[in-house]
């Protein structure tokens, strides 16, 4: 029993420097490399557009879609409110059905538990179902370090593993690769692959099938994640498409499932909500090809040893934040990624965490914290958003991601006392208050063209403006200041022409049309500006 001594203690974040919840560099810098990758942007653009359209089709098909979202959101909120009792109930039910439950405070502990369980079976290999939780704790790296070889069995995850790469999307981890690259990866890395292998997706999938079939048939231990864990019955569930999940959950002697404590649902009946919300939001399908539900062990069917590892790793820290805990409601459908204009351009790697995109920008700092250091990658994540709100609209469990981002920005400002933007604005305010200085600054800014690259953008500015230029390319200032232009012959002529035009328009009494046109050109400007701002 935990002893309750007066004030409750604030739960710790995921320990610094462990697992995959922090990148090597801040988002703006990481995004910069990724933005240079034209292939990535094309693939992502095509992929997200396709999934987006499919999702709208199949969600529009259900007249009760909004009611399902309301129910989904409330079930998760209710589950968080009752987490202690639900976790104990889940543990009890799993145990009652012949499984063993383990608890892990953080990634290191979870890794040790899994490695110990694998060793106890005498196996030095495991087959793996794609899982965000095991990716988060860096399980593969840990297993390798103790002499156990993990084999990813999801096709995209396999591609990523063979290429010693990192996943870039929750759902389609190899979305950044095209068929030619995948063909080359297979030719280089799959032992005994047909050297004549071409780049047709069906042939590539067949090559993976042949390679993995042997592993499925012979490996004695599997590791999986879980989409849902039902407290009422002790039932665990994995939602997938390829059948690799079914293979791993069914064929080995031992199954080890690593599940974040936030994945628990109160009742079996709750599946009726999430099995409608998840596939439709995620792949835009009415139902994913395969869903497996299992409760402990079943004599004569499937693994006879089942272990459930319940993982904290910063989840309780997120739970202790009245506003931020909504992020724990996430069911990892990836709908928010696919509608995010920032994600669409930068891809998943720029976020540096297992959890990319809008939800990653919220969840990652919640789990692993933001550090006061100016260059902490996680403190830049809350700013990696245009706050356009598309993610909130798309989220099947109605997580208000934009508000959470704003809250995290607030927390970050409180924590560090300042932001790059604040510094830049302060410098600008000082200059603007003094006309002479302002004119001088404008002239100096004209020089900006000289430092701009050939594409007319400036990517590095000296302090105090470096904070600004670190996170965005700035369009080079015009050759002339407005004041200078206004005073020139060219400016005077243009103004006169505009005034004449205006008068003529009046006499013809077509004010609407000219209004329309100026609106359109303003909108045009806006769009171009938006491109510059984000690209």
């Amino acid at each position: 029993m935990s002893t309750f001594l007066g004030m409750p203690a604030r739960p710790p974040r995921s320990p610094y420097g462990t697992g995959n919840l922090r990148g090597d560099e801040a988002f703006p810098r990481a995004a910069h490399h990724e933005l240079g990758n034209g292939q990535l942007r094309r693939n992502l653009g095509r992929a997200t557009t396709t999934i987006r359209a499919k999702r709208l089709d199949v969600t529009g098909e259900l007249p009760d879609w909004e009611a399902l979202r309301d129910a989904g959101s409330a079930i998760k909120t209710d589950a968080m409110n009752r987490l202690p009792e639900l976790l104990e109930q889940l543990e009890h039910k799993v145990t009652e059905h012949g499984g063993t439950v383990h608890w892990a405070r953080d990634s290191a502990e979870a890794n040790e538990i899994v490695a110990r369980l694998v060793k106890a079976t005498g196996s030095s290999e495991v087959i793996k179902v794609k899982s965000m939780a095991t990716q988060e704790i860096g399980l593969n790296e840990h297993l390798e370090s103790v002499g156990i070889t993990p084999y990813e069995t999801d096709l995209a995850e396999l591609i990523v593993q063979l290429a010693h790469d990192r996943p870039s999307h929750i759902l389609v981890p190899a979305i950044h690769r095209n068929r030619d690259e995948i063909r080359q990866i297979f030719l280089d890395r799959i032992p005994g692959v047909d050297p004549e292998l071409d780049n047709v997706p069906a042939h590539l999938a067949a090559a993976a099938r042949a390679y993995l079939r042997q592993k499925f048939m012979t490996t004695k231990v599997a590791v999986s994640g879980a989409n849902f864990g039902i407290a009422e019955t002790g039932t665990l569930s994995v939602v997938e498409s390829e059948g690799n999940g079914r293979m791993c959950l069914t064929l080995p002697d031992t199954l080890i499932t690593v599940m974040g404590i936030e994945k628990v649902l109160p009742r079996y009946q709750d599946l009726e909500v999430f099995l409608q919300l998840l596939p439709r939001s995620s792949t835009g399908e009415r139902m994913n090809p395969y869903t497996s539900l299992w409760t402990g062990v079943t004599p004569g069917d499937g693994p006879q040893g089942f272990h459930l590892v319940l993982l904290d790793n910063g989840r309780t820290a997120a739970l202790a934040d009245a506003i931020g805990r909504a992020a724990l409601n996430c069911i990892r459908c990836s709908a928010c990624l696919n509608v995010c204009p920032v994600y669409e351009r930068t891809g998943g790697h720029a976020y540096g965490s297992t959890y990319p995109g809008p939800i990653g920008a919220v969840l990652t700092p919640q789990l692993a914290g933001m550090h006061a250091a100016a260059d902490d990658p996680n403190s830049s994540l809350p700013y990696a958003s245009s706050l356009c709100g598309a993610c909130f609209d798309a989220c099947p469990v109605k997580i208000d991601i934009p508000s959470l981002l704003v809250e995290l920005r607030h927390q970050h400002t409180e924590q560090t006392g300042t932001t790059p933007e604040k510094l830049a604005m302060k410098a600008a305010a000082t200059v603007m208050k003094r006309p002479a200085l302002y004119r001088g600054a404008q002239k100096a800014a004209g020089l900006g063209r000289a430092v701009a690259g050939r594409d007319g953008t400036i990517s590095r500015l000296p302090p105090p403006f470096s904070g600004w230029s670190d996170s965005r390319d700035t369009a080079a200032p015009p050759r002339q200041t407005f004041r200078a232009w206004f005073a020139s012959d060219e400016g005077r002529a243009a103004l006169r022409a505009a005034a004449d035009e205006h008068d003529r328009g009046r006499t013809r009494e077509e004010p609407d049309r000219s209004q329309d046109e100026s609106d359109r050109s303003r909108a045009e400007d806006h769009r171009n500006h938006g491109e510059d701002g984000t690209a």
Partner: protein
Amino acid sequence: MTTARDTVLGRVRDALALAPTPATVVPRAYRTGRVLPDAERLALFTDRLLDYKAEVHPCTADRTAQVVAEVLRDRGARRIGVPTGLDPRWVDAYDGEVCPDSADIPAPELDALDAVVTASAAGCAETGTIFLDGSPDQGRRALSLVPDLHLCVVDLSAVEAGVPEALARLVPERPTTLISGPSATSDIELERVEGVHGPRTLVVVIRTDR
């Protein structure tokens, strides 16, 4: 010594004490308890199965054996696996080798089967989903997974309109598999490829008068 269990549960309690929120009532205004006439359920179920590239054969119950035999012959299946509890009359008309399953047959041997024939526990028309629950006529999970062709016999009377109605037919503690079309991946440039690790072909025989 404090165990990890006590620590994690303690942290959860602390977290809730630090950020208490009011109890939530779950609104369940979504559709449940839907009933659709047979013809509509059949049409919807068939449409959705075809959309997933499954093969569909509606038939009357007394023609089950004939349809099963025809499908297997057309597909060139010479050896098929069947769960121990499958109605033997369903494979009466089939002239290939019928191998009854048992728990001690290792997976690689299942790989040598051309097809598997099973019954099913329930279906969902709106999503084109078949539910297997490991009952004797459906067998253990490996059996319906490893062979490349899965022929599944579904009674229309067990096909419900939507997900809530179909899930209500299940026994939660049974090992359950939801199948919607054959195995598929879209991992390479989002192009859908049928058949990765599970059966590449799914044939559904729907007995319409049951």
